């Protein structure tokens, strides 16, 4: 029985005067004890919203959340705010994208760490400070006792992210959600952070929900991968399977658009046409159709169902999926699971692609 | 007398303020020990300038000092006749230059000194021998008005000394001699500015200079804090709290006359007219002066006591003939006089007891004449006169003061507007020239730069010369005319030593003046004073010289 099982999660923004916007429409996936699950997709595909919905951090007004999210038997979505507070930080923890803006600029690091210890572990005063120092030390921040007294702006980017992680793992949560934890960091730091996360997850047996657009990270870290497009899971598979045989044209495109150092000279990149804005409502058909090479009128017969056209457990939401071979080189590297290396190249690549 | 008008004003304020408090019936209950009931608080319009009346010329100061200092001669309570003060009797020789005073026996100063003829002379000689800043007309205005200059005049502009000397014939007989007879005497002897101080105090004063030639006068220290000054009045000044804007006086138990009814008398400055009224309504003060006419009705309705004073001032519309040649034509002056609806002004602007004026003295002053030419409201007549003068297209600059109220003109701006529309009805074009009271307006009027202007005067003492004399005794820039008929009439009256004859001459003079119409006397109005329900107010005085010793609580 999964630790977290999300079922048909939908999030709708109802801005006043504006047309409702379905940011997430019917996302389902599971996370098991100690498992690392990735949510992959371009920015705006609804992955962050999903995570916030799970944490109950979406604003109350102007947002309607539907579906279920069973965490260890209890539905997070219908939980009372009070209960949710108790879970947050102790059972569920989250790491955010931009470490600088995610830390309170006018409160010393120490306080920001100890306050969570005080809240969930009842640690006060000296004890709390000791524990906090230990935490910082554990996430690899040198000279922790001094750092405790410092303010976020006095720390380097990597340090800040480590501090955030320290807070997140302070109470040994059972599920850790990391929302693009490395995007704001330098390449080398990224690798270290990923390493750190990995260790922590292994040590504590924490389940990790990794939200990213960086396939390198996925390759390095995740056991199970869900690819989101326009607020729906379009492909969901075990990591190797996905890299071996990306079946949804979008997933396929994603992998194809990554430049590879070992690619033969002169071979052009295969970027996906257009942007996430060129979309159609799922109700009308496949949201990806406008950017899809394989698009046919069939794509417009309502929402395509999630099927398993290839191997059991490998779900794809597409009327005419890709059956070409996967990207083995990448798979190899992934197999070696040399995160540092991959993350490095991938991210570097990612940067270029973005530029 | 270049600056009469401003003087006028000053004095008015002075006299006015001074008056305020006073005469009330003595109630036995007033005596009961302790309790706030023994403190009478009066709302003043401004802080006193000095605790030594000799250095002052404004009413706010005199209002306070009058309770602690007495002059040789005083006015009858609630009236304008001269009666004995510290001198129980006085007389002058036939030339009117030698004045003899019989002093009261057993008069004690607040510092324990006894009142003697020497004490009196010490005062007059002290003033006469003033030097330096003390000779500034801003400091010794009244001395200079009544007694002329000093032993040594330091500035050529100071008037020539008229004071000759003072001798003590015996312990209680003082003789004061002057060079020339003056219409200002004996009235002048009653001025608070010439009130008698304790010799000990005088010695203390002598040690201190008024300083600050720089940009303004700094009054000597002794005049800015209680302690040194000592007079003979029913109250002694015990404290001046400038922060709180309060002067506190206490009953002087060795007072030679009838003792004060209340233990404590406090003057509290509240600049805002409406603030004073509300303070009274809220019960924070027991009385205040300069009640806005509009408030009189309100206060009466609410059961406050608003005794009506006799009028002792005159409000006039002045012509400056050098500013506008057209005004040199008598018809034009008459036309304007006819054009103005004085009735309406009195009806709508003045407090109860206000009167339309027919001449430049109020009817309460000896020398008032019933036979003067009058100029009733008649727009058509005004038009005719203008046509006769060939001035159908007459246009005038009309100056009026803003942000000021005077006992004789409660709301200058409003009065101006009323007259403006009157004049316009008569076909005269009016160009409004509103000015800040001081110094702009006063300078302008002094120098006769306005065609028309509004001013007035409240008498210091009952002598017509104190009114018309200040204006029409000779050429004055304010009026800008030379007319021997008028000037001679004045001379004649002034130089007449015999009191009764003088009064007749004054009546003549008034008739001459009103025939010449140098301006339009508008009205006389009683400055209103108000008291709380639970006090027995003093007798109100036309000179606004109420005596707070008379006040008691019901």
């Amino acid at each position, binding site marked *: 029985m999964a630790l977290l099982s999300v079922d048909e999660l939908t999030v709708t923004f109802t*801005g006043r*005067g504006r047309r409702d*916007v379905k940011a997430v429409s019917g996302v389902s996936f599971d996370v098991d004890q100690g498992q690392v699950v990735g949510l992959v997709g371009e920015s705006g595909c609804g992955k962050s919203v999903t995570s916030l919905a799970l944490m109950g951090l979406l604003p109350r007004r102007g947002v309607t959340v539907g579906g279920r999210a069973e965490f260890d038997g209890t539905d997070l979505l219908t939980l009372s705010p009070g209960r949710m507070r108790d879970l947050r930080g102790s059972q569920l923890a989250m790491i955010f994208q931009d470490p600088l803006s995610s830390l309170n600029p006018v409160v010393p690091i120490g306080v920001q760490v100890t306050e969570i210890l005080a809240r969930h572990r009842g640690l006060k005063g000296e004890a709390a400070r000791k524990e906090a120092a230990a935490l910082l030390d554990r996430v690899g921040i040198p000279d922790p006792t001094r750092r405790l007294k410092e303010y976020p702006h006095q720390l380097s980017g990597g340090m800040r992210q480590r501090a955030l992680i320290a807070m997140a793992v302070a109470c040994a949560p059972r599920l850790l959600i990391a929302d693009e934890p490395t995007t704001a960091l330098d390449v080398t730091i990224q690798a270290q952070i990923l390493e750190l996360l990995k260790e922590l997850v292994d040590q504590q047996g924490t389940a990790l929900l990794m939200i990213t657009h960086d396939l390198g990270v996925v390759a390095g870290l995740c056991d199970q991968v869900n690819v989101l497009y326009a607020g729906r899971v379009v492909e969901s598979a075990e990591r190797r399977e996905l890299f071996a045989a990306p079946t949804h044209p979008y997933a396929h495109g994603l992998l194809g658009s990554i430049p590879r150092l070992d690619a033969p000279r002169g071979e052009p990149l295969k970027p996906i046409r257009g942007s996430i*804005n*060129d*979309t*159609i*409502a799922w109700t*009308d*058909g496949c949201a990806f*159709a*406008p950017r899809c090479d394989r*698009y*046919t*009128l069939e794509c*417009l017969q309502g929402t395509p169902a999630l099927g398993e056209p290839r191997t059991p457990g490998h779900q794809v939401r597409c009327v005419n999926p890709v059956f070409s071979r996967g990207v083995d080189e990448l798979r190899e590297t992934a197999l070696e699971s040399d995160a540092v290396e991959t993350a490095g190249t991938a991210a570097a690549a990612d940067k270029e692609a973005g530029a | 007398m270049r600056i009469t008008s401003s003087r006028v004003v000053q004095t008015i304020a002075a006299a006015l303020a001074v008056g305020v408090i006073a005469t009330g019936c003595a109630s036995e209950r007033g005596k009961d020990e302790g309790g706030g009931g023994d403190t009478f608080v009066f709302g003043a319009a401004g802080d006193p300038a000095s605790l030594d009346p000799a250095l002052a010329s404004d009413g706010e100061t005199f209002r306070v000092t009058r309770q602690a200092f007495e002059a040789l001669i005083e006015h009858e309570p609630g009236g304008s006749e001269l009666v004995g003060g510290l001198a129980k009797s006085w007389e002058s020789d036939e030339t009117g230059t030698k004045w003899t005073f019989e002093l009261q026996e057993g008069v004690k100063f607040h510092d324990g000194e006894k009142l003697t003829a020497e004490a009196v002379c010490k005062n007059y000689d002290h003033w006469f021998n003033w030097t330096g800043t003390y000779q500034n007309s801003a400091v010794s205005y009244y001395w200079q008005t009544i007694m002329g200059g000093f032993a040594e005049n330091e500035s050529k502009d100071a008037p020539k000394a008229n004071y000759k000397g003072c001798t003590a014939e015996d312990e209680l007989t003082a003789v004061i001699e002057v060079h020339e007879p003056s219409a200002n005497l004996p009235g002048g002897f009653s001025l608070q500015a010439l009130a008698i101080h304790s010799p000990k105090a005088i010695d203390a004063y002598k040690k201190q200079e008024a300083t600050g030639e720089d940009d303004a006068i700094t009054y000597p220290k002794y005049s800015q804090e209680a302690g040194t000054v000592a007079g003979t009045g029913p109250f002694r000044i015990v404290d001046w709290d400038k922060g709180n804007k309060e002067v506190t006086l206490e009953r002087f138990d060795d007072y030679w006359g009838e003792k004060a009814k209340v233990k404590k008398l406090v003057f509290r400055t509240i600049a805002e*007219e*409406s603030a004073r009224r509300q303070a009274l309504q809220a019960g924070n003060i027991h009385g205040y002066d300069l009640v*806005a*006419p*509009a*408030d*009189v*009705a*309100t206060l009466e309705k609410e059961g406050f006591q608003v005794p009506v004073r006799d009028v002792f001032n005159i409000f006039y519309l002045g012509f400056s003939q050098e500013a506008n040649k057209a005004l040199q034509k008598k018809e034009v002056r008459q036309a304007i006089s006819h054009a103005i609806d004085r009735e*309406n002004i009195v*009806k*709508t*602007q*003045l*407090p*109860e007891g206000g009167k339309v004026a027919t001449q430049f003295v109020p009817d309460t002053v000896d020398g008032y004449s019933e036979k003067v030419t009058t100029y009733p409201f008649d727009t058509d007549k005004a038009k005719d006169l203008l046509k006769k003068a060939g001035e159908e297209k007459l246009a005038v600059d009309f100056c009026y003061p*803003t*942000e000021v109220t005077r006992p004789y003109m*409660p*709301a200058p*701006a*409003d009065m101006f*507007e*009323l007259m*403006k*529309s009157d004049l316009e009805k008569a076909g005269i074009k009016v160009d*409004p020239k*509103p*000015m*800040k009271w001081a110094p*702009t307006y006063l300078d302008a009027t002094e120098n006769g730069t306005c065609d028309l202007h509004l001013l007035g005067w409240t008498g210091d003492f009952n002598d017509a010369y104190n009114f018309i004399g200040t204006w029409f005794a000779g050429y004055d820039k304010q009026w800008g005319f030379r007319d021997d008929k008028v000037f001679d009439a004045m001379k004649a009256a002034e130089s007449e030593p015999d009191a009764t004859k003088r009064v007749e001459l004054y009546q003549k003079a008034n008739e001459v003046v009103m025939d010449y119409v140098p301006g339009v006397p508008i009205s006389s109005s009683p400055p209103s004073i108000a008291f709380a329900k639970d006090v027995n107010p003093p007798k109100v005085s036309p000179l606004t010289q109420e005596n707070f010793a008379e006040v008691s609580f019901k």
Partner: protein
Amino acid sequence: MSTKTDKIDRLAELTAAAETSAGAGLWVEAWRRLRASKMAVIGAVVIGVFVVVAIVGPWVAPYDPTAQLWRGEVFPNQNVFVGPRGENWLGLDHLGRDEFSRMLVGARQTLLVGVVATLLGFTVGALIGGVSGAALVLGGKVGQRIDTVVMRVIDIMLALPSLLLAVSVAAVLGQSLTTVMIAVGVVQIPVFARLLRGAMLAQGGADYVLAAQALGVRKRRIALGHVLPNSLSPVIVQGTLSLATAIIEAAALSYLGLGNPDAAVPEWGVMLAQAQRFFDSAPMLAVYPALGIIITALGFTLLGEAMREALDPKLRS
């Protein structure tokens, strides 16, 4: 063939349907949100009414606002006033003049004071601020020096309580309606100067300026062509708000006796200051002009605030 086309067509229309209104330009977007905001609408309406009254007032006023037509009926000295009645909708003032006519005509004076004063403050202030801002952004060393000097002066002005500043001006120029306008206007100068300069500094750092400089565009052109226009929006907002302040400040000056001394000319501030004398017996005489001032000021404030919100990029969704 046909399938291909209708493939595209179908897709096109669906895509169009899904198109969000994102990507509209700053001004368009601002305008859209301005129309959406209640504040703006109310404000605009109030101002509209006020301006109309100010313009047509003198013609529609039933009586001459300065003529004491009912002089005989009002006795301020006995608290006898005439309230609203058939011929005088708002009753009579303390000199028997028609209050309603005075209110109507007064609107113009009041608006005049507000507008002239603000324009003065705006022009001078914007000039100063613009110059020193431009100097600082593009002037190098010299520019910096210029800027420091100018801003020091501005600081001096800012250091004075507005009223005192106004009083000083009034004292020097003597009392008149013009004085009031100038006095109130002068008070606004430093505000505008600082604002525009600040905005220009922000703009100065903006990428497009650096780009322009890199492309060797002449500095004056950058300043006038790019920085200035982009810096104006906050100044415009301030302008609207200043109109409100100006009207209130003018009233305050009148209360201090520094207003238009010719009280015959109806102006709300003066009317208010005058009427306080009769507050107990005829409170409405004070309340009418006071309401006039408050509501008008409110109108400008509402619009100004709404504009600020509309133009604030932070608040854009």
